[in-house]
């Protein structure tokens, strides 16, 4: 084997110099989370790098709903799941239809819609929280999970439309023309040609919207208030209402809450990266 050239060594060194701090920066809080989760209540704040008596007791308490703050743990977990899946599904429906209409059917005004979609990101979602609260109040949807589902769809849709439109543009136009000549109506074109070819992008965008809704705190906190309706993220926030917060249980629940997104991301990561280049059909 040839000795690596100086250039390569310096390149590697530079990457490591950036990579190691970033990795520590990212992993340290997660390690803290984990440390709290396996520490007994007394030694949670001991500041050790590893607890003297690691325990799974905290997990037993959380799964068994054996604490005042955790009375509805499973129900709230379920709420999070339902809302995330519904928001992901609805976003997909809206964004796919919009992307198809704009990119493939060349609908009049499509450009304006795309510009508007981009424009929405000039305004941080947090600024829109109160207007959204009022709007949902007008619709009579406050304290209804539909309010959060619709709100999350509204937040996720513009970016989704944008990405799906870009991916659609990369599908060759001749496919549509061939299908039209073969006798396909626009709906048949959508169902039989467009959707199957867009699968990687759809998975990527569905996952994006799902995780966005799963992780949402602010909107969930504002729009839902009943203990039996809220998502787990809001329940986690409620831990801090007391002076003597059970930190070890908060962290344990947080760790559990973080696992599904990690799993989803791991399963679909192929699509998350692939989705961005999915349309690149070989000519």
């Amino acid at each position, binding site marked *: 084997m040839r000795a690596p050239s100086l250039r390569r060594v310096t390149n590697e060194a530079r990457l490591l110099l950036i990579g190691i701090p970033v990795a520590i920066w990212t992993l340290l809080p997660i390690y803290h989370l984990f440390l709290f989760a396996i520490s007994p209540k007394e030694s949670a704040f001991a500041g050790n790098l590893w607890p003297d008596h690691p325990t799974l007791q905290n997990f037993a308490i959380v799964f068994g709903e054996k604490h005042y703050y955790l009375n509805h743990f499973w129900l709230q977990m379920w709420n999070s799941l339902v809302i995330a899946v519904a928001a992901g599904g609805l976003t997909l429906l809206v964004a796919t239809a919009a992307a198809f209409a704009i990119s493939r059917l060349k609908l009049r005004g499509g450009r304006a819609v795309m510009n508007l979609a981009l424009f929405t990101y000039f305004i941080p979602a947090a600024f829109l929280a109160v207007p959204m609260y009022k709007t949902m109040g007008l619709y009579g949807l406050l304290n209804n999970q539909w309010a959060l589902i619709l709100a999350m769809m509204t937040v996720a849709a513009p970016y989704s439309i944008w990405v799906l439109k870009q991916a659609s543009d990369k599908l060759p136009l*001749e496919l549509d*023309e*061939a299908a*039209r*000549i073969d*006798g396909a109506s626009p709906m*048949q074109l959508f169902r*039989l040609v467009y959707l*199957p070819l867009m699968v990687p992008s759809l998975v990527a965008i569905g996952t994006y919207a799902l995780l966005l809704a799963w992780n949402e705190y602010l909107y969930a906190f504002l729009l839902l208030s009943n203990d039996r309706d809220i998502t787990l993220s809001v329940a986690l926030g409620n831990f801090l209402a007391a002076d003597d917060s059970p930190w070890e249980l908060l962290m344990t629940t947080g760790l559990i809450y973080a696992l599904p997104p990690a799993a989803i991301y791991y399963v679909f990561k192929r699509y998350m990266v692939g989705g961005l280049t999915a349309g690149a059909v070989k*000519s």
Partner: protein
Amino acid sequence: MASVSFQNVEKSFGATKVIHGIGFDIRDGEFMVLVGPSGCGKSTLLRMLAGLEEISAGTIAIDGRVVNDMESKDRDIAMVFQSYALYPHMTVADNMAFSLKLRKAARATIEERVARAAKILNLEPYLKRYPRELSGGQRQRVAMGRAIVRDPKVFLFDEPLSNLDAKLRVAMRGEIKALHQRLKTTTVYATHDQVEAMTMADRIVVMHDGRVEQIGTPLELYDRPRNLFVAQFIGSPAMNVVDGTVRRNGAAPHVEAAGGVRWPLGAASGPDGQRVAYGIRPEHLSLADSGTNGAVPAEIIVVEPTGAETELLVKVGEVQIVLVTHGRPVVNPGDRIALAVDPAMVHVFDKETGQRLKV
């Protein structure tokens, strides 16, 4: 099977007019090739016939029925695209069956038609494969198969061979022609390649800048090009064209080119002193003994033997021209030779209008 008729067809994209009132008829069962350089409007015309582009003015009729406002799917046509446009997520069999499924044909009919098309195109071993698993030539055949199963009134081909390598192109050219001879379906075929046009067509429409330059059988276009554009577009290697002036005083009528070179005029008309473009195909020139009556003196620049024939680049007066000979002449660059011109084979065009001078 059907006839196709174009009448005063025009096409504009915004303010830009790309087709300027084209009219011609295609006979039932005919293989018609639209040929011209890129941007001449041949693809646009084909796409208007297919229903993929609006018709700005005029009418297009298939089998006597005006189709201007008819959807593509109702025109009973099938099209083969340059990029094949196969559905990547469907097998070869599904690709071919797609149109029939949309038309809700019976399963037995679909299977029978697909099997028949696969047999015609030698695609039987590949029916379960996906397009990405096929070679370029096989994909091309699937695209044709997709057209055949429809049993349409008209086949449309839009530069179908452009994505293939040279050898495969020649092979597929033969296959398409054989297919047409077998099915006898009216075919409209757009290409920029005049060799494809010459070898495949029953008749050719030569287009240029959105206008028809000439319509005729391949040999009509070759023997009697109506204008300079057609003359230079049809034929390979291209026709030699020399600028000159008609001279009728004194000896035999001839065209005098720069440097005092005298080209025999043949039977072409044109008054003394008219400025003309004098055309002669490389294969209608031959080597002559110097001193032959009417021979044109020349100097050899390049000799290109291809085995069957030899292409010579020669200098005559101030211009370079090409000649093709079937023999294997023993000549070398720098040799001074004489060219014999067959006066019956010369083409003389008005320098200003580019139109052929009458005989």
